[in-house]
C-alpha cells in the first residue's frame, strides 16, 4: 500500500519536474523564435513606411503613414516579369542538369566497383569545397577565350547558358555526394537481379535506380532551386547585360548610387523572397528531408 503511494508520489514529482523542464524549453524556443522572426517582421514593417517619413523623423519614430506604396514602386522599378523570367531560365535548366549528371555519376560510383570509383567520388565532393570567388577569374577568362575562339563572343559569357553551366559544375559535387550515399542505402540485390535479368547499364539506371531515387531527387531539387535562386555572384561576374540577370540583381536596381531607400528595398526583398517561401511551404516535407539527406549513412 505504502509502496503504491510512494510510487505515485515519485511519478507526480517526475511529472512536475518534466513540466518545469518543458516550460523552460518552450520559453527558450520562444525566445529563439522571436530572434529569428524579428528581422522578417522588421523588414515587413519597414516596407510599409514611406522613406520620406523615415528621413525626416528617424527610423524609430512613430509612423505618420503606413501603406503599400513601396510595393507598387518596387514592382514597377524592378521590372519583375523580365527578371523572374531570367531567374526561371537559369534555375530550371541548372537544377535539371545538376540532378541528371549528379545521378549518373552517383550511379556509377556507387553501383559499380572499379579501381578509381572512390577517388572519383572524392574528386567531385572536393570540388564542392572551392569557394566561387577563388575560381571566378579563370572561369571568366575561359568563357571569354572560348567566345573569341569560335567567333561568337556571347556564347557563354553574358548568356544564360554560361551561368547555367557554372551552377551545374558547382552544385554537382554536392548532388553526387548526396545521391551516392542515398543509393548505398538501396539494397544491392535489386541491382544484381536487374543485371541477372539482362538489363543494360542504361536500363539499370533509368528503369531501376531512377524511380527509387525519386524522394532524394525531390529533396535535392528543392534545395538546389533555393540555392541557385539566391545566387547573385555568378550572374554578376559572368554577365554584362543587366537585363539578362536574375531577380537577385533586380533588387540592386532599387538601390541608388548614393541614396538607398531602405523602405523600398525592404518591399523589394519581400517580393523577391516570396517564391522561395511558396516553394518552401509547398514542399516542406522534401525540404526537411533534404536537410538531413546524407547525414546518416546507410
Amino acid at each position: 500500500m505504502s509502496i503504491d503511494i510512494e510510487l505515485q508520489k515519485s511519478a507526480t514529482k517526475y511529472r512536475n519536474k518534466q513540466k518545469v523542464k518543458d516550460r523552460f524549453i518552450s520559453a527558450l524556443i520562444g525566445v529563439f523564435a522571436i530572434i529569428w522572426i524579428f528581422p522578417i517582421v522588421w523588414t515587413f514593417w519597414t516596407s510599409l513606411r514611406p522613406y520620406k517619413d523615415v528621413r525626416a523623423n528617424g527610423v524609430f519614430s512613430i509612423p505618420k503613414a503606413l501603406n503599400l506604396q513601396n510595393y507598387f514602386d518596387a514592382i514597377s522599378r524592378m521590372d519583375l516579369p523580365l527578371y523572374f523570367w531570367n531567374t526561371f531560365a537559369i534555375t530550371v535548366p541548372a537544377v535539371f542538369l545538376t540532378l541528371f549528371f549528379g545521378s549518373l555519376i552517383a550511379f556509377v560510383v556507387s553501383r559499380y566497383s572499379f579501381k578509381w570509383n572512390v577517388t572519383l567520388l572524392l574528386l567531385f565532393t572536393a570540388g564542392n569545397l572551392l569557394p566561387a570567388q577563388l575560381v571566378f577569374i579563370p572561369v571568366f577568362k575561359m568563357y571569354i577565350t572560348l567566345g573569341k575562339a569560335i567567333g561568337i563572343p556571347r556564347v557563354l559569357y553574358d548568356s544564360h547558358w554560361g551561368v547555367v553551366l557554372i551552377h551545374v559544375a558547382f552544385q554537382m559535387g554536392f548532388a553526387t555526394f548526396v545521391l551516392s550515399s542515398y543509393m548505398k542505402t538501396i539494397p544491392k540485390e535489386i541491382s544484381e537481379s536487374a543485371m541477372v535479368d539482362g538489363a543494360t547499364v542504361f536500363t539499370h539506371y533509368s528503369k531501376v535506380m531512377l524511380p527509387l531515387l525519386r524522394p532524394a531527387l525531390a529533396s535535392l531539387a528543392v534545395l538546389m532551386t533555393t540555392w541557385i535562386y539566391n545566387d547573385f555572384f555568378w550572374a554578376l561576374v559572368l554577365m554584362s547585360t543587366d537585363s539578362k540577370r536574375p531577380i537577385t540583381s533586380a533588387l540592386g536596381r532599387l538601390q541608388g548610387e548614393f541614396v538607398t531607400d531602405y523602405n523600398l528595398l525592404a518591399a523589394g526583398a519581400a517580393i523577391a523572397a516570396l517564391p522561395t517561401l511558396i516553394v518552401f511551404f509547398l514542399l516542406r516535407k522534401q525540404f526537411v528531408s533534404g536537410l538531413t539527406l546524407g547525414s546518416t549513412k546507410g
Partner: protein
Amino acid sequence: MLEQNNGISRRSVLKGAAVGGLGIAAGGSLLAGCASKATGPLAYGARSVDAGPTAQNEALIAAYTAKTKNEVKYNATESNAFQNNLSQYLQGTPDDTFEWMAGYRMQFFAEQGLLADLTDVWGTIGDQYTDSYKIASTGLDGKQYFVPKSWYPWGMHFRKSMFKDLGLSADTVTNWDEFLKMLDGMKKKGLVGFAAGDKGGWEAMGTFDIINARVNGYQFHVDLMAGREKWTDAKVLEVFKHWEMLIPYMNPNVLDLEWDGAMQLLLQKKAGAMLMGSWFGGNFKEQSQADYDDLSIIPFPEINPEHGRDTVDAPIDGWCVAANGTNNAGGADFLAFAGDMEGVQATLDAKDKDGKSIPMTSANKGQDRSTYDAFQKEQMAVMDEAKYITQFLDRDTRPDFAGPVVGPAIQSWFKNPKDVNKIVDSLQAQWDALPPLA
C-alpha cells in the same frame, strides 16, 4: 584656372612600358572624321538606375538618335554592381560607350588598353572645355580617354536658418580657429557640430582628402595618392591630429551611420554642419523645396595659410568608349555628340517624372549659368575659389588600395584614434605589398 598634376613616376613609366603595346593597339585610328556620320547602332552602358540620371540619359539618347538615325541599345546596371564588375565588363563584351569617372579611375583602365582613344573627339569638342577638364580626361600616355559630363564639389554644408540662429555667416567660418569656435557653439546648443557617417567606408575619405589638402597642400596629396610620398610621413600624422580635434563634435555613432544617416541629422536640424559632396542636394529637394532653399555650402576652412583654401574635391563624371566594344567609331561618335553643347543641352532639358528639371552642373563651358539656382551658384563659388581640383580619394588612387585598404583603415582609426601610428604603418605596408599594375 585649374591644374592637375600628371607627374609620371618611375613606377608608372615602367607600368606604362609594360602595357604600352596594348594601349597603342587599342587606340589606333578607329575614328574616321567627325560626328553625325552613319556609324551604325551602338550600345550604351549606364552606371545608374536612379530616376534622375535615367531621364537624362534617355533624353540624350533620343536627341542623338533623332539626329543621326543610329539606334542606341540601353543597358543600365546599378552603380555599385557596375563599379565592382567593371574590370570583367571591359574585358568581356562591353557596351560601346559607358558612364565612368575621370582621373585615376579612368587612367587605370586606359593603361590596360581597355579604353579607346578619344583624342579625335577632343579635337572636335575640346574648345568647349577648360584645360582642367581636358587634363582630367587624359591618360598617362597623353591621349584623351574620357568625355566629362558633370561635376559636384565637396564642402561644408549647413542650413542657412540654423546659421542665422547661431549668429554665424559664411564669412565668419574661414579658418580653423573660427571653425572650432563654430563647432563649440553648436555643441553648447546641444547640436552635433560635424555630422559624419563612415559605415560605407568611403564617406570619411572626403574628410581625409580635404584636411590633407589644407594642411599639406595639393601636391603632397597627389603624391601621396600616387605612392610617391609615404603614409608614415609626419605630415600624414598631422592630418589625423587635426581630424581628431573634430571627433568631440561628431555624432558618436559615426561607424553605424552611412552618409545618408549623417544627412538626416542635418535635415532634422540635429546637426549644424556636414562635409559632403553636393549631390545630396537632390535629397533635400525631394523632401521639400523649403529644405532645399535652406541648404548652403562653403569651402572647408583654411588650416595652413600657405595653402589657404586652394583645393577642392570635385569628382567629374562622364563617359568612356570600351576598346572591346563592337562599334568603337559609333561610341566615339556618340560622345562627340554628348560632349557637344547640343548634347549637353538635351541632357539639361530632361525632365523627371513630375515634370521638374534635374539640377546639373555641366562640365561644358557653354551651359547657361544664369539658370543656376542659389545652391548651384554657391557650388560654383566653391569651385571658383579653388586653384586645384582633386577627384576624391577612391578615384585618385589605385582601386585595389582605396576601397579594400584605406576604407577599413579609417574605420579602425575611428574606433581608436590613439592607434594612429599603427594604422599609418599598416597603410604603408599594404601599399608596398600591392602587386605592380600590369
